[in-house]
């Protein structure tokens, strides 16, 4: 088992522009973010010996495009949290001596669709046979499928689920790079255009272009880099099913319940140690599931925790401080942007900086509750 703080993030950057970036193709967004991260770390492509990215982009495409000769690659693709898994796998690979310096990249032309790859379910896959015929049309029709059951089980109201978007917009207002920054109210959310009941457009993530990249190495080397090292204390991962209709509990994600506690136990931290939290919010219900499945709230209590502004600016558990997938950016695989915000918070460079934050938990989801990855960061090596 890796020791907490054995591996560090020494380079981190997003693409130069996020939001609407029609001047770059998908691989161009990967490369732009990668070059920015290498500049951040003071490295050249020849200094990198490990590459990770998520399909449809393959590590060999990125390595060749950037001129990297890797000794280790990872193409784990489990959806938008793949980057959390890449961090976990890279940390293990560096500790095992398979490589020294790993570059993890993301680029997605989600809005402009420049050289983007479609991802329809194949008609002979289980999802193609047993979900697709009933009219799902992308994540907005599938991810919220469990929500009505969750609402009935715990007495969650439409107002509770609207408040998630309201609070995250407050955080976005503090982030100049966030796509949507104007304040919204619960009424605004509940009067916005219906997409897939119970969710309206302000409860669904953005669709944007952008990229991000991280560079990891051993903590012993980290002091030689120009930026403040951000140490990895613990990580976790799991998967459940590609079919949201088959998740075992509609009020909780099994993948969350494995990945989150695994990461926190590996880090050796308690919930009260956490200063900053990111929970991948493709849709408004995800922060509630995340807060409960990771144990920050008891079952059914996340609705009140958010309603009472505990996760809002000035609250005791700042959550999704970039504005999240709902207001900051969401290219399709948002997990990289959640990781970037955790790194900024640990470096002390976030636009909505949490004063004195020392531990950040970054929790991702892939597919429609189909996968999960969690990373615990700190700016102090234990």
């Amino acid at each position, binding site marked *: 088992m890796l020791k907490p703080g054995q591996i560090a993030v020494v380079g981190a950057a997003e693409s130069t522009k996020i939001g609407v970036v029609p001047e770059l193709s998908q691989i161009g967004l990967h490369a732009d973010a990668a070059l920015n991260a290498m500049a951040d770390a003071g490295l050249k492509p020849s200094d990198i010996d490990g590459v990770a990215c998520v399909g449809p982009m393959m590590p060999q495409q990125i390595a060749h495009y950037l001129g990297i000769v890797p000794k280790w690659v990872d193409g784990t693709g489990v959806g938008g949290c793949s980057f959390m898994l890449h961090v976990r796998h890279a940390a293990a690979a560096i500790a095992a001596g398979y490589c020294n310096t790993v570059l993890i990249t993301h680029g997605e032309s989600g809005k402009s669709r420049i050289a983007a790859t479609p991802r329809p*379910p*194949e*008609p*002979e896959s*289980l999802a*193609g*046979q*047993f*979900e*697709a*015929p*009933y*009219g*799902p*049309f992308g994540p*907005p*029709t*599938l991810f*919220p*499928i*469990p*929500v*009505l*059951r969750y609402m*009935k089980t715990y007495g969650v109201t439409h107002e509770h689920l609207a408040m998630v978007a309201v609070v995250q917009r407050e955080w976005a207002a503090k982030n100049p790079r966030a796509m949507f920054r104007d304040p919204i109210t619960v009424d605004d959310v509940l009067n916005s*255009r*219906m*997409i*897939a*009941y*119970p*969710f309206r457009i302000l409860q669904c993530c953005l669709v944007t272009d952008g990229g991000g990249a991280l560079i990891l190495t051993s903590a012993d080397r980290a002091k030689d880099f120009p930026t403040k090292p951000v140490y990895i204390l613990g990580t976790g991962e799991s998967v459940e099913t590609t*079919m949201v*209709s*088959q998740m075992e509990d*509609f009020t909780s994600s099994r993948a969350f319940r494995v990945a989150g506690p695994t990461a926190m136990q590996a880090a050796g931290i308690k919930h009260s140690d956490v200063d900053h939290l990111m929970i991948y919010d493709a849709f408004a219900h995800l922060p509630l599931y995340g807060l409960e499945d990771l144990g920050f709230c008891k079952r059914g209590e996340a609705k009140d925790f958010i309603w009472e502004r505990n996760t809002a600016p000035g609250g005791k558990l700042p959550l999704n401080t970039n504005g999240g997938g709902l207001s900051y950016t969401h290219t399709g695989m948002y997990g990289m942007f959640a990781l970037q915000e955790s790194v900024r918070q640990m470096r002390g460079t976030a636009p909505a900086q949490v004063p004195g934050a020392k531990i950040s938990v970054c929790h991702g989801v892939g597919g429609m509750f189909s996968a999960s990855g969690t990373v615990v960061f700190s700016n102090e090596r234990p």
Partner: protein
Amino acid sequence: MLAPGRAKPKPTPETRHFWEGTKQGKLLLQRCGDTGKAYFPPRPFSPFTGSRNVSVFEASGRATLYSYVIHHRQVPGFTPPYAIAVVQLEEGPRMMTNIIDCPQTPEALVLDMPLEVVFEPLDEEITLPLFRPAKGGK
């Protein structure tokens, strides 16, 4: 016959019995021989124990409405708004489906309402299991 345009399932050797069943008006599930528990979607082994000791059986067709969304955008084969539902089958497994013979509104689609299966041909090869409010309740 359902309106054209829906995504059409392509059976595999492991799922063909299910789609042959729906064509004959039967909802076929499988049962683990070790635990006696029913499961879905089809596979030639038990997801509970890994045992290949499994059998196919005909489900009652009775279910309850477990959760759903009502989609408001245009999709080929559908007239919005339409519900994409997950039903809880009497035998235990859940499956995605559509609810027919019922207004596609939150007021009419009440969680846990009793449902019954109906078989609607998509074309000559594929018949989909859909559900409607149970006649006379359950």
